[in-house]
């Protein structure tokens, strides 16, 4: 269970639903590890993130709030299996339940592919994503549901999505960069993220925020599958999360694996909490 959240495992009896209906935020683990292309281990991501969140203080002095009073329910993991389309359908259904109950889903990945389920559930107009990679492949190794194609899928398969903002992106194939040049994609390179502000761009629009932890420089977040140097400072990720969170109806942090001493999961856990504090303070 995410520290500070209430235990709200998936109910198997509809009579158990009353507690879940009242939560403001619902944590869902999505340990999918099916299409990772280099170093695997995202199946351990949700567990690592919850574990590394344990030492954090409940109180946030910036917003004068206690995490444990913000009504965060943790309904555990949606166990992953290899049929990715089927898994995403089931996962989206789980997240949609939170949306229907006026709660904000907080998804712990898992490879980045799971964001497609989050976006399907929230149906945002704008997909804001911190990521080292463009993830704009039409298909990677022939797989359109590869984690390297997730942003493209979100743009093309979710009707509600009008535009994508990619923050910290610094690598992609030639065809991905060509796709990124279209009007519905904005790429903010790492050097410019510190100065970036959404301004009025997100006002009165449905927004989904996704953090691929490899947006951070691998020096800070080595526990991820495809490390890409020259990345963001943790404080730059934090500032983006603080800015976007008040507008966002869904959030995820993905691509955390277990191949480090916990630095990556600690950063991910902290960003989840920053999102909750900032959204609640919003």
């Amino acid at each position, binding site marked *: 269970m995410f520290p500070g959240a209430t235990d709200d495992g*998936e*109910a*198997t*009896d*509809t009579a158990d*639903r009353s507690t879940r209906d009242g939560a403001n935020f619902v944590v869902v683990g999505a340990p999918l590890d099916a299409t990772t292309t280099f170093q695997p281990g995202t199946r351990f991501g949700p567990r690592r993130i919850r574990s590394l969140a344990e030492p954090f203080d409940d109180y946030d002095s910036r917003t004068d709030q206690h995490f444990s009073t913000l009504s965060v329910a943790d309904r555990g993991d*949606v*166990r992953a*299996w290899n*049929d990715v389309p*089927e*898994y995403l*359908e*089931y996962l989206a*259904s*789980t997240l*949609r*339940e939170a949306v*229907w109950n006026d709660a904000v889903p907080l998804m712990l990945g898992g490879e980045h592919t799971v964001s497609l389920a989050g976006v399907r559930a929230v149906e945002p107009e704008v997909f804001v994503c911190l990521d080292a990679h463009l993830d704009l492949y039409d298909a990677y190794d022939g797989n359109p549901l590869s984690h390297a194609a997730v942003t493209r899928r979100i743009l093309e398969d979710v009707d509600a999505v009008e535009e994508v903002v990619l923050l910290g992106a610094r690598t992609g194939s030639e065809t991905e960069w060509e796709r990124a040049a279209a009007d519905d994609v904005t790429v903010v390179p790492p050097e410019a993220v510190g100065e970036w502000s959404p301004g009025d761009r997100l006002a009165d629009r449905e927004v989904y925020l996704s953090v691929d932890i490899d947006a951070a420089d691998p020096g800070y977040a080595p526990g991820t599958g495809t490390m890409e140097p020259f990345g963001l400072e943790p404080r730059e990720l934090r500032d983006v999360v603080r800015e976007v969170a008040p507008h966002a109806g869904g959030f995820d942090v993905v691509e955390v694996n277990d191949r480090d001493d916990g630095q990556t999961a600690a950063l991910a856990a902290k960003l989840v909490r920053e999102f909750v504090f900032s959204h609640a303070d919003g």
Partner: protein
Amino acid sequence: MAKQQTEVRELQEGSYVMIDDTPCKINAYSTAKPGKHGSAKARVEAEGVFDGKKRSLSQPVDAKIWVPIIERKNGQVVSVDGNDMQVMDLETYETITMRIPDDIDVSPDENIEYLEMEDQRKIV
């Protein structure tokens, strides 16, 4: 309440199910593979037949669940009075009073189809 029991695995999109003691129509049905020793689970996304509210449930596929028995009937509008109308059941000739939905225009002698479950009715 008119209902019967079935297993969750028997449910399908377009059919009815009771969620939170409310009859609902199923919009989406998906299943999760079991863990090594777990039993497969199904998720149902549904919408209340009479109140339009979205609901969902997650249950093992072999769990028992209630399915409401909803009748589809034909009726004839006898008269209209403000927001209410008198409708004659074309099978039993019983006359009932129904609230006219905001998005529907009806006039006397018109034939309508409606869903009925106990005292609840909805025009389709």
